[in-house]
């Protein structure tokens, strides 16, 4: 019964996506929200990495914005200051950020217990300071402007509408790859680590190695998102990568349901709409809202708002169907 209800939910989702994608080709449909939807896509990419790291493997990162920022700045500096091809810059940024995460992750994960949260918290603050202080390269607190657009052949992604497709192409790729990983042998090993590290070791899972690898993968996702962000806004500044940015990313992952890859889209969308549209007038008080959301979700629906909503829909469908069969 439950399985059937779940199937119905999938049909609903597919129908909604189809409808959405039919409307997408019309610029008027997104209108002034194009930029918001692009940013949702970019945030989703980072959030998916956090879901793999936090939800599946059980490791908390409080400094994911550091990798997001590293990707953005490397892309920005290489393509603008040194005139490197933006695609190549993006690749170099991803590789460098991955290597950076490896260097941070390897010693951290060799320690027992959850030292990653502390280490990444520190890392986030340090990177933010570096972005501000290395003004010779990064433009300091004002950041840097005039980053070139990405282009393929003669086609330049110079309108928001074009970049919408670009960003969501990458986003869907990241979602798909992550979904595959979750369903594979590696995904099972990651969940085993979350379930019990001692038991995971006992069945031959190299716990440290898997933790480092998934940490590196999440950093690479964040870096790709950062590069797209830089080429989208054509302007990067330290504020986008401060501690609050890391907290928002965690909020996205938590709302989406940590152990659900597709929930990341929902989490990123909800949080982005909150932060970019609804909470603007409250200034810095928005931190309180994020804190409240985190607490409420963790206490009342630890499996995440997205998963909870799915359950509720499935429950009502089931009741509806039962009523149908009785009469």
């Amino acid at each position: 019964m439950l399985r059937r209800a779940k199937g119905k939910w999938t049909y609903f989702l597919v129908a909604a996506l189809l409808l959405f994608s039919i409307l997408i080709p019309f610029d008027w449909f997104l209108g002034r929200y194009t930029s918001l939807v692009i940013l949702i896509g970019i945030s989703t990419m980072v959030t998916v990495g956090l879901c793999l790291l936090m939800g599946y493997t059980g490791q908390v990162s409080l400094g994911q914005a550091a990798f997001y920022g590293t990707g953005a700045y490397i892309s920005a500096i290489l393509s603008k200051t040194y005139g490197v091809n933006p695609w190549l810059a993006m690749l170099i940024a991803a590789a460098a950020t991955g290597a950076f995460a490896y260097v941070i992750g390897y010693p951290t994960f060799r320690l027992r217990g959850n030292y990653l949260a502390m280490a990444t918290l520190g890392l986030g603050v340090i990177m933010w300071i570096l972005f501000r202080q290395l003004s010779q390269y990064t433009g300091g607190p004002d950041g840097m402007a005039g980053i070139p657009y990405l282009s393929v052949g003669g086609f330049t992604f110079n309108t928001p509408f074009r970049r919408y497709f670009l960003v969501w192409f990458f986003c869907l790729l990241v979602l798909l790859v992550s979904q595959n990983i979750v369903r594979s042998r590696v995904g099972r090993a990651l969940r085993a680590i979350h379930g019990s590290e001692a038991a995971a070791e006992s069945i031959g899972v190299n716990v440290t190695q898997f933790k480092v690898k998934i940490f590196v993968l999440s950093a690479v996702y964040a870096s790709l998102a950062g590069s797209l962000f830089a080429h989208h806004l054509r302007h990067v500044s330290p504020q986008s990568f401060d501690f609050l940015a890391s907290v928002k990313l965690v909020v996205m992952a938590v709302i989406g349901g940590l152990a659900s890859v597709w929930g990341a889209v929902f989490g990123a969308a909800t949080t982005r709409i909150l932060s970019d549209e609804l909470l603007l007038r409250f200034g810095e008080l928005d931190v309180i809202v994020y804190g409240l959301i985190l607490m409420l979700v963790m206490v009342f629906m630890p499996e995440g708002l997205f998963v909870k909503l799915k359950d509720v829909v499935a429950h009502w469908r089931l009741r509806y169907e039962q009523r149908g069969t009785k009469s």
Partner: protein
Amino acid sequence: MSQSVLEARNLGKTFGGLVALDKLDLAIETGKITAIIGPNGAGKTTLFNLIAGVYTPSTGEIRFEGMPVNRISAHGRAAMGIARSFQNVLLFGNMTVLENVMAGQHPRSSSGFLEGALSLPKAHREEETVSLKATKYLNLVGLGIYAQQEALSLPLGQQKLLGIARALATEPRVLLLDEPGAGLSTIEKRALGDLIHRVSEMGISVLLVEHDMPLVMGIAQWVIVLDSGKKIAEGTAAQIQKDQRVIAAYLGEDID
């Protein structure tokens, strides 16, 4: 060449000033069911964790089928063929019963991040094999019908069987069982005894640490008795039951 699946020579482990195991020499015979017994604090669990690779020995060495394993990590030993269950079971609560056993196939499969991410045919074929083998081990312990249930929804007795199925799925040559009978009813203990016999018949050496004397005496072909970190006796169940030193250790009598 060696008759012993596991050997310990001069094995010792100290925690700070506490000597948990003291210059222990022992050999676990291949293909047999061996039990380690002893009063609380005798060093049974320490020995167990040393063999499984959770602790590193302070002195001496452990050999598995003649090969020194001191420098090999716990996950490396699992891959070599040393599997274990846990006293507190430690199932993966975020998985179904079947997935728990499939996880046990980890060292016998090889798809990595790339194969998984791209969902390559190799990964799919391997997943099918893993799933089939896991079902086989699940049926062996009699939990086949619960395959799709949440692992932690099972009662304790069945959770313990699932823990053994997960360990068996690593296709070990020696299976270490840490107090498998603890918390089980008499009927469940009988089922457990039968299962251990079947495992032994599959050619897997079994080493168990157990408090439950009827269970040990019923299934163990060789019994090793530890007290205060030292081996005080070993022999068949019948010999051990008559051994004066063992009786003294358990009843706290002085024999000198």
